[in-house]
Structures are given as structure tokens and as C-alpha cells.
């Protein structure tokens, strides 16, 4: 294939195509600047209220699951940034079922751009930057409690990149299920939005089984929980090995591999049933 001689060239082609499509949607949104800014600021306010709920809770208690408000804010900030970035970049993929029913997926398959890229870039919404900004604000407010040094900064960067990748995979994997049952978008939401909500709280409030599931089954605990333990200089109350605190990139890579497999199976199924 012309653009896919090597995996690197293929990836470059995919990323380039993604931004071409995304740029078009950004330009289209900017044609109505008032609407764009209203929606962006609205996004900040709505997600801000989301954090206010947690803040209010702390007006009655000093610690929750052994964590102070700022510590919870750190967990909240890290998962929110990762989740909202992933949502902005690939969130559209959850419309697979709709695209199958409308026939749009067939049209996508007749274009020289990978289908997954077209699905993810479709209706790219820059206004979601507002929601990302809220995550950054909460994180910035919590950041002073960490005793920053170069090592912790490096872990933070690795964590955010891994977190985005992990949520990418959650979005794509659970949306791909729609190739088998086209109405599964609610099901996917439970794991994407639901996952982000769970990760806003310290794992100490959940039973051990839940934490295990979030480590080994759906490794969302690597988005913020384990690396934040390191940032805060804590060891895991559930006794997970210390190296878990640096294992986020590993979890992300494993999930990327799994997601690639699921996606291929899903598309293969579509290409042999046409529905």
C-alpha cells in the first residue's frame, strides 16, 4: 500500500488524516464563534459543578477513605485530564452503531483513510477543551501538596500520556462491541463515563474486589490511583507491589494491543456480515 509500507508510515498517514478531518470540524465550529465560546464556557461550568459536589462533601468530613480534599483533587484532576482529552480525540467512536445503521460506515470504507481514524475524527469538538481546562484547574489547585522533583514530574507526564491511551482503548473497545450488538452504546458509556467517575475517588472507599477488577480486568487504576500514590509518597493500602506505581505505560501498552485485536475482529465481522 502506498502509505502503509511500514507501520511508522501507516501511523503518520493515520495521524495526518485525523487532523485533516478534525481541522475541518474546528473550522466549521469557528464559523459560529459566539456559539463556540458559549458551549466551551458552558462545558467548564458544568464540569466545575461536578467537582463542587465533591468539595461540598468535604465540608462535612475531613478525609474520605483516608484522603484529604486536595489529595482527592489530585486523583480527580489526573483522571479528568486524561479522560477529557481522550473523549475529545476519540469520543465520536461510540457512534459506530449509528454509522452502521445509516450506511455511513460503508461510505467511510470507500475512502482511502483508515475507518477508525474517520470514526474518531468525525464531528471533532474543540469545545471540549473547556472540560479539559476544568481538569487542569482542579489538578493545579491540588498540585502544591506534591513535593515535586524531576522524577515525580516524569512520572506525571508518563501517567497522563498512559491515562489518555488507556481511555482511548476503553472508548474504542467498548464501542467496537456495537459491531456485534448495534445498540450497545449505553453499555459503552458505563465503562467510559462511568469509569472516569469511579476513578475520581480514592480506591480505599471500594471493596478489595472492585480495586482488583480495576487493576487486572479494566486497568483504570493505572490512570491515576497507582501513580498518584507515588506522587503523594504513599504505599498502596491494599498491598499492591510498589512497582505498580510506575506500571501505567505497561498497562496502556497491553490495552492498546488488546484494543487493536478487538477492533480488527469487529471490523472483520462487519466485513463478512455487512451489518
Amino acid at each position, binding site marked *: 500500500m502506498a502509505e502503509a509500507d511500514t507501520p511508522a508510515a501507516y501511523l503518520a498517514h493515520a495521524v495526518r488524516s485525523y487532523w485533516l478531518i478534525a481541522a*475541518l470540524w474546528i*473550522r466549521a465550529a469557528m464559523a459560529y464563534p459566539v456559539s463556540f465560546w458559549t458551549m466551551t464556557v458552558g462545558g467548564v461550568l458544568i464540569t466545575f459543578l461536578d467537582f463542587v459536589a465533591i468539595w461540598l462533601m468535604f465540608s462535612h468530613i475531613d478525609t474520605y477513605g483516608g484522603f484529604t480534599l486536595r489529595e482527592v483533587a489530585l486523583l480527580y484532576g489526573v483522571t479528568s485530564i486524561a479522560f477529557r482529552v481522550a473523549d475529545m480525540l476519540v469520543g465520536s467512536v461510540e457512534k459506530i452503531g449509528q454509522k452502521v445503521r445509516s450506511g455511513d460506515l460503508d*461510505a467511510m*470504507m470507500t*475512502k482511502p483513510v483508515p475507518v477508525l481514524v474517520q470514526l474518531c475524527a468525525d464531528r471533532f469538538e474543540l469545545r471540549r477543551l473547556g472540560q479539559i481546562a476544568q481538569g487542569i484547574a482542579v489538578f493545579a489547585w491540588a498540585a502544591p501538596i506534591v513535593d515535586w522533583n524531576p522524577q515525580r514530574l516524569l512520572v506525571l507526564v508518563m501517567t497522563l500520556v498512559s491515562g489518555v491511551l488507556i481511555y482511548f482503548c476503553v472508548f474504542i473497545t467498548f464501542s467496537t462491541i456495537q459491531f456485534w450488538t448495534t445498540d450497545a452504546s449505553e453499555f459503552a458509556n458505563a465503562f467510559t463515563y462511568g469509569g472516569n467517575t469511579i476513578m475520581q475517588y480514592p480506591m480505599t472507599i471500594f471493596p478489595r474486589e472492585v480495586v482488583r477488577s480495576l487493576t487486572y480486568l479494566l486497568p483504570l487504576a493505572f490512570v491515576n490511583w497507582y501513580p498518584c500514590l507515588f506522587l503523594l509518597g504513599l504505599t498502596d493500602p491494599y498491598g499492591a507491589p510498589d512497582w505498580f506505581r510506575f506500571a501505567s505505560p505497561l498497562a496502556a501498552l497491553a490495552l492498546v494491543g488488546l484494543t487493536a485485536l478487538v477492533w480488527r475482529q469487529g471490523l*472483520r465481522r462487519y*466485513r463478512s456480515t*455487512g451489518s
Partner: protein
Amino acid sequence: MALIEVRDLSRDFTIRKKTGPLRRTSVVKHAVHDLSFEIDAGEMVGYIGPNGAGKSTTIKMLTGILVPSGGSARVAGLEPSRQRRELARRIGVVFGQRTSLWWDLPLRDSFELLRRIYRIPDQTFRRNLEDHVALLDLGELLDTPVRQLSLGQRMRGDIAAALLHDPEILYLDEPTIGLDVISKGRLREFLRALNHERGTTLMLTTHDLQDIEALCDRVIVIDHGTAVFDGPLSSLRVNGGSSRTLVVDLVDEAAPIDIDGARVMKVEGPRQWLAFPAGASAAPLVAQVAAAYDIADLSIHEPDIEDVIRQLYSR
């Protein structure tokens, strides 16, 4: 070597049916079964058949969307299912009942995006845009979001979009469905010119016999997944033995009209239905009827493709 080569192409679908609270049975449906044909560069081929005959399934295999379960297809020297994206650069696809344009964006933006993702050279893009926009009369619509376009306008936009990258083959799935007579006529004219002037190979599926008449020298009829006829339209007509219908409203009720070259199918009060061969002209019949009766009104019904095919089978 032919531009499109189809050899014993098959696609089975497994349909699972619930036959009880827990029991399910699977039925294998042969959507396309041992289909073979070749299409040369520059041909205009009508690909017709009743609903569910396997038309869309074939087109989906020729564009690489569906993977065949048996046999082989080669399009422009490529294997569609394995080289789908490479093939995409060399073909254009227009689906009549849906758009491949971006619904909320102006036509111009859709064209611009296609320019970039197909990496169309500037000169080619500008020439195609100018030509097609003029011929398809899209000039005033370029800044209108696709969702605000009428069906006919959208179809023209879709066709212009599918041709921007100079495809060698254009697949059209029901291109004139839902269009008014004038739009249909203009679209056919455009497609004919495209084929004559640029040599673009056209393969179209349609229910409209007039599309075929106006455009296609060759017709492939498919039913139950297999080609049942492949040849010029005229011989399909003759082979099919289908008929046109002259509907006559007389001023007064009368006994069944008895004229040469037609037979009465039905009488309902002053209205009578006369069938005559599809190859014949209605003019002499009308003259005969008018000479003998007082006519209040007349109309002629063309056999549709379903009729032709039904006839093809009833023989």
C-alpha cells in the same frame, strides 16, 4: 485484461433465527452465488435485479467493503477486500439513498477535505471542480450545508465529490431514486458525457428502466445472487417478452377494444387497459383507438424492471 473481473464470486450470510425461548437455528443465505462477469474499461453497465437479489452485496464486494466467501474479484488489477484503501483512490462510489458528504458542512468544505485525503493535485482538483460544478449546476450551492440541500442537489454534490480524484470506475447505486424528471434527465446527460469524454467506466444499479435505456449498452440482470442475463438491453426486452400498457379512458363505456397489435387486459367502466409489446410504438395504437372511439384521456405505463425480470422468469 478486463477492468473488473468477477469469477465465481460468492457471499453467504448466516442468519440466526429464534425458534423457541432458548433454541436458535441458523440459516445460510447465499446473497451472491457463483457470480461471474467481466467489464472492460469505458463500458457503461446497468446492474439490475429485484430487491434482495444481491446487487448491493456485489457492489460492496467490488469496493472492498465486504469480503467474499468464495470466488474472486479483481478491480483495476487489485483485490478489493485486501487492497481496499488503495482501490479507493481509483474508484468513485455514490450511494443513492445516503450521502458520503459531511452532513453539517458546506459542500465546498467537503470537497476541500476530499482534496486533502485523496491528495488530489491542485490542477486536477481545480479542473474537476470547475467542470463538474458547471455541468452539475452546483455553483450557487457550494456554501450551503449538505443537510439543507434537496435530494437532487445532494445527489449532484455526491457525484461531483466522487469524481474529484479522477476515478477510473464510478459505481452508482440507485442514482436517480427520488429525483424529478428534469433532474433525472440532466443527471443522465452528465453521466453519458462523463463516459464519452473521460472514458470513465460506469456501473449502476437501478430500478428505473429509463436510466438503463439512456445510459447503458449492456445490462447484467442478477437474481438470487446469480447473473441470469448479460447482454444489450434490446435483447433483454425481447427475451423478457414484457409489455407496455396503454390506459384508455373512453367517454362512454364500451365493449373491449379490438385493435391490431394490442390486447385488452382489463376493463373497468369506461377505462380499459391494453397491453402491447415493449418494443412497439404506442402511436399507431392511439390512432386506431381514436379513430373508433371518443377518448377522454390516455396514459402509457412502461414496464418496470421488476416486470421485465418477472417475465424473464415466468417463461
